[in-house]
């Protein structure tokens, strides 16, 4: 088997895996944004993604121009984000993180239910105008759509990084991430910051929803994309954007390689759990993840 190892094929699988890993990273970044500022693991991120994609596609199907639909959907996502922050998270301030997590679990049920109650449960196709034909780059076949998705995701990450590095509100975001109490003490306007962060998470949900929707069709199962992002977060650490990117690439690549090279020994279909096993094994070796900070136990 080693003798006739097909490097060409290996590379194709690897690149395909890395590119789908970028898509995982994109979803994971939505989590990181909120976790860093408010310590909430927002399980509803997947439902938000579904809601965004469903809203967008339904608007377009009703004849709303592409760009306008994008703007309207973004506005709706921002409104939802702010509403969540106001009605659900604020009353739960100072509750244990796991309580907040359960609240977002409830939230995901509400958003999923509402999305489908409003727009219906049928599957919508979503065409972003990118053909999914393979391109040959350096002898390796790569899906054109995957490249497009990766470029968009990379652009998204760059945009967020610039925003948080160079704008006033972005800088205060980082202060909040470092120490909420201190940020409060020096008079940073937390509500504004939280609203901004939830709006940013809404934007990420919109972009991820469109990319994933174009690939899988816009339907209920879109919200299950969170389940792909969670092992990425475990691997990269819940509080690290860099971790989300690298974790996504690692998970994407190892998942595809495993499916192709060892999946047959398991009877196939191992992608439902393989990412979790990778993340778990990694964590057993390094409990704070790839880039997560090692916490000093305080007693």
């Amino acid at each position: 088997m080693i003798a006739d190892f097909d490097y060409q094929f290996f590379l194709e699988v690897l690149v395909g895996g890395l590119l789908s890993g970028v898509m995982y990273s994109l979803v994971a970044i939505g989590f990181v944004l909120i976790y860093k500022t408010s310590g909430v693991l927002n399980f509803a991120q997947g439902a938000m993604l579904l809601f965004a994609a469903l809203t967008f596609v339904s608007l377009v199907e009703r004849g709303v121009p592409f760009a306008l639909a994008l703007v309207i959907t973004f506005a709706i996502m921002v409104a939802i984000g702010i509403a969540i922050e106001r009605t659900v998270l604020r009353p739960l301030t100072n509750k244990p993180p796991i309580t907040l997590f359960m609240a977002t679990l409830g939230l995901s049920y509400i958003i999923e239910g509402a999305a489908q109650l409003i727009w219906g449960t049928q599957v919508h196709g979503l065409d972003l105008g990118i053909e999914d034909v393979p391109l040959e780059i350096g002898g390796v076949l790569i899906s054109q759509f995957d490249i497009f998705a990766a470029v968009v995701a990379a652009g998204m990450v760059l945009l967020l990084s610039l925003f948080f590095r160079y704008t006033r509100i972005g800088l205060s975001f980082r202060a909040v991430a470092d120490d909420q109490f201190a940020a409060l003490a020096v008079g940073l306007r937390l509500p504004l910051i939280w609203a901004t962060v939830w709006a940013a998470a809404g934007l990420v949900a919109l972009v991820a929803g469109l990319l994933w929707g174009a690939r899988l069709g816009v339907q209920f199962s879109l919200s299950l994309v969170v389940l792909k992002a969670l092992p990425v977060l475990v691997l990269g650490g819940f509080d690290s954007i860099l971790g989300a990117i690298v974790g996504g690439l690692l998970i994407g690549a190892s998942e595809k390689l495993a499916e192709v090279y060892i999946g047959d020994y398991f009877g196939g279909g191992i992608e439902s759990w393989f990412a979790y096993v990778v993340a778990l094994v990694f964590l057993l070796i390094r409990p704070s993840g790839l880039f997560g900070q090692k916490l000093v136990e305080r007693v």
Partner: protein
Amino acid sequence: MTAITSDFSSAPVLPKWVVPVLLLAFAYGVVPLIGSSYLFEAILLPFLALSLAGVGLNILTGYAGQVSLGSAAFMAAGAFAAYNFNLRIEGLPLIGSIFLAGIVAAAIGIAFGLPSLRLKGFYLAVSTLAAQFFVQWALTKFSWFSNNSASGVMDAPRLSISGFALDGAIGRYLFALTIVSVLTFLAHRLVSSQTGRNFIAIRDNETAARIIGIPVLKTKLLAFAISSFIIGVAGVIWAFAYLRTVEPDGFDLDRSFQILFIIIIGGLASIRGAFFGAALIVVFPLVLSRLGGFLLGDLFDSGVLDMSQRIVLGALIILFLILEPDGLVALWDRIRRRLLFAWQST
């Protein structure tokens, strides 16, 4: 997750055992005489199975503080293990199959509980999803588990205890009631024992627990094992007594969340809470469907029902977390105290 440990703390005038005993007498003596088959099939059987699953998860999450999102996997493991023990071991009594199924679920629970020795909080919660996906995958992938059945859906064996058939709705109800009562009683004893106090100690302050000499690692794994045993048996009841079929599909992530919701709504770290929560989870879709049909007529089709159920359930979770974090149990105790007070002051 502040929680109260004193379960079955009934009215101050009555000894603690009176209310449970009266309830049991009613459940055994009166319900079988007056219940319709709809009551047993659509309400009481799923209620009993889910209550028991809630008791199991409450031991792990409510008492020991380890959040699990993979409960349905242990239900599935229990159901399939009982099916296979019953099928493959000649002459093993049904109760034996069920016990062994619990042991299998406990062993799987320990395996997936191992990450809890190093991971905490969200990291652990996410890692329990691995159990959910892995077990479901294994059960669908390897047809040996479903006796090479083409559809993967098998009929559950007929229930009987020492030759005494329990096929009818009432028989299955009594079968489920008995198992649930016994395991609940044992769970109640457990949480008020030193082991139960160790669970709570680890939940409330793991570092302090370790420093005062509680064997933290062993205790955590024990919590996973006991919890998975109980949830596994709940899976057997779900498949054998309620659905009467064994299939992996019903034990999906939504089921795991459902069990988690049961203990949040009912009350974390309360044995009674699991029953309160399960009652609400079982009854509210029926009420919602009646109510929706009544108010909206034909507009309220099954799709709308499904979605509004999700919305209401999600809203309930959030409302309980904000307004009554100790769940229905706390609400119930407060109402009862008010009533008692009003009654005494008249």
